[in-house]
């Protein structure tokens, strides 16, 4: 049913650290790789070798420049995938019951057997998290690698979403954000994690960690004191310095 569960036992989700994401796209292709043979297989690619290649990706990395009023700017790499919202509008608009939010872990899924491909959920999602598979005629989305994180055939360390395993900088963390004592919740608390588009009222589970304050402004170093100016000066001082050491 597309009724949202009143509460979920867990709130599995991702925490993305914008301070250390270098925009390498490892999460993009590792996601594609796992999921093209995963729960929503295949993630089709239309015109893959042609003029207008366009395929289904659950995770995409944007990059932005942010300029302040003093004209100073920073570059931020910004991965974005489904945020598995608590108040997921993509679920409630679904007319067929294909979209659902799991009561046990909060994962938002589309049942590929039920979806009729009306695309309404992709309109209802403010984040652009849902991708329509033109070839399959159904909507697909991030599953949090539901078929990987619980997969008994995989070693324990692999039972995290593919994007999390792959991320070289460690910018992606994963866990139960419903448990305030979980490592990810602690991380969010420590680093001031925030929601995207809070005004949309979707109560996203995934959190983003802001870039840490960049350091030039907070330099503690004392200006260097000029002790020598000329080579003669150097000879005088440094011979002494070494002999007295």
């Amino acid at each position, binding site marked *: *049913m*597309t*009724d*949202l569960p009143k509460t979920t036992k867990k709130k599995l989700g991702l925490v993305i650290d*914008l301070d250390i994401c270098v925009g390498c796209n490892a999460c993009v292709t590792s996601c594609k790789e796992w999921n093209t043979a995963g729960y929503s297989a295949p993630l089709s690619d239309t015109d893959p070798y042609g003029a*207008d290649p*366009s395929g*289904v*990706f659950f995770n995409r990395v*944007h*990059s*932005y*420049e*942010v*300029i*302040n*009023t003093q004209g100073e*700017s920073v*570059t*931020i790499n*910004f991965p*974005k995938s489904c945020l598995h919202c608590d108040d997921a*509008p993509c679920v*409630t*608009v*679904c*007319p*067929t*019951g*294909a979209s659902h939010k799991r009561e046990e872990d909060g994962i938002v899924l589309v049942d590929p057997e*039920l*979806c*009729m*491909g*009306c*695309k*309404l959920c*992709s*309109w*209802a*999602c*403010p*984040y*652009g998290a849902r*991708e*329509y*598979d*033109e070839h*399959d*005629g*159904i*909507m697909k989305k991030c599953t949090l690698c539901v078929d990987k994180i619980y997969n008994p055939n995989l070693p324990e360390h692999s039972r995290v979403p593919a994007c999390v395993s792959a991320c070289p900088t460690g910018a992606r963390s994963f866990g139960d954000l419903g448990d305030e004592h979980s490592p990810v919740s602690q991380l969010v608390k420590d680093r001031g994690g*925030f*929601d*995207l*588009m*809070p*005004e*949309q009222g979707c109560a996203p589970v995934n959190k983003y960690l*802001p870039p840490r304050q960049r350091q030039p402004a907070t330099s503690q170093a004392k200006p260097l004191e000029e002790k020598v100016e000329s080579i003669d000066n150097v000879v005088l001082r440094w011979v002494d310095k070494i002999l007295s050491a």
Partner: protein
Amino acid sequence: MHPALSVILFSTASGAGYGLLIFVVLGRLLWLPSDSTALVWGFVLSLVLIVGGLLSSTFHLGRPERSWRAFSQWRTSWLSREGVMAIVTFAPMAGLVWHWFARPNDELLLLVAGVFAMVGALVTVFTTSMIYASLKPIPAWSNPWTSAVYLLFALMTGGLLYYILVSWLTQNQNLILVELTIGLILSGALVKLLYWRHVSSDVSSTTPESATGLGQLGKVSQLQAPHSQENYLLKEMGFKIARKHGQRLKWICFFTAFVAPVSVMLLALFVQGLAMKLLLLSALASMAIGVFIERWLFFAEAKHVVTHYYHEARYQ
């Protein structure tokens, strides 16, 4: 938003069908000048428009064979409710057919079926409008004017169809109907103007800064798109028309949907026979064009907040 032909046809045709249904029922109940032929043809035409519209909407589906599932989630989904209401409304419509063919003298049946059919028609159009009006990420839709426009456009297009049908079959242009139809058209124009005014003045609280959560650092602008070619999201939701084209289309829409039909209807009052028929048909054609443009713009000009993640000049 990408203006898909199937969805434009669906909402305009089924709207006109339900509008016409209301007039057919009103015609019978309130003895608006009509004859039974007009009612029958009106009923058939409304049925064609409704069914055609609904069928057209399935062309938009990736898996139309699963569309029956869409009736299941009426508790949360306006699209499901719309489907359910469309089906529900077929019941009083069947009652009307029963009345005409089997129990022409059963006035109670007529009254009950008629009222339910009208209410069903209005509610169905309302649910259609709510499919759009419930989408918060699309501020141009997510406001009460959307429902007002859908409802009035249904009545306006249905009214014009009814008027033409009656005039055609009775060879007579009834003044009450003229006044009523023109009144609806003018109301439609007014509501659409108010919609446009609302939309143009409505500043979304979502910005690139809130979308990325980086507003505290300053103004956010795109450096690199995630993929260099357009993806589904941009093809579907990043559709954008230039402002000046939009403005021009609005003028065309306003003229063809409202000004021309009203003028032609008034002109037609002075002629008879073939000339009248041709004039009325041209009023209808003009309105059809206008309504099509209106609905096309309804999509094309609606911005989805997801575009805040993309290149400002190109998509936002």
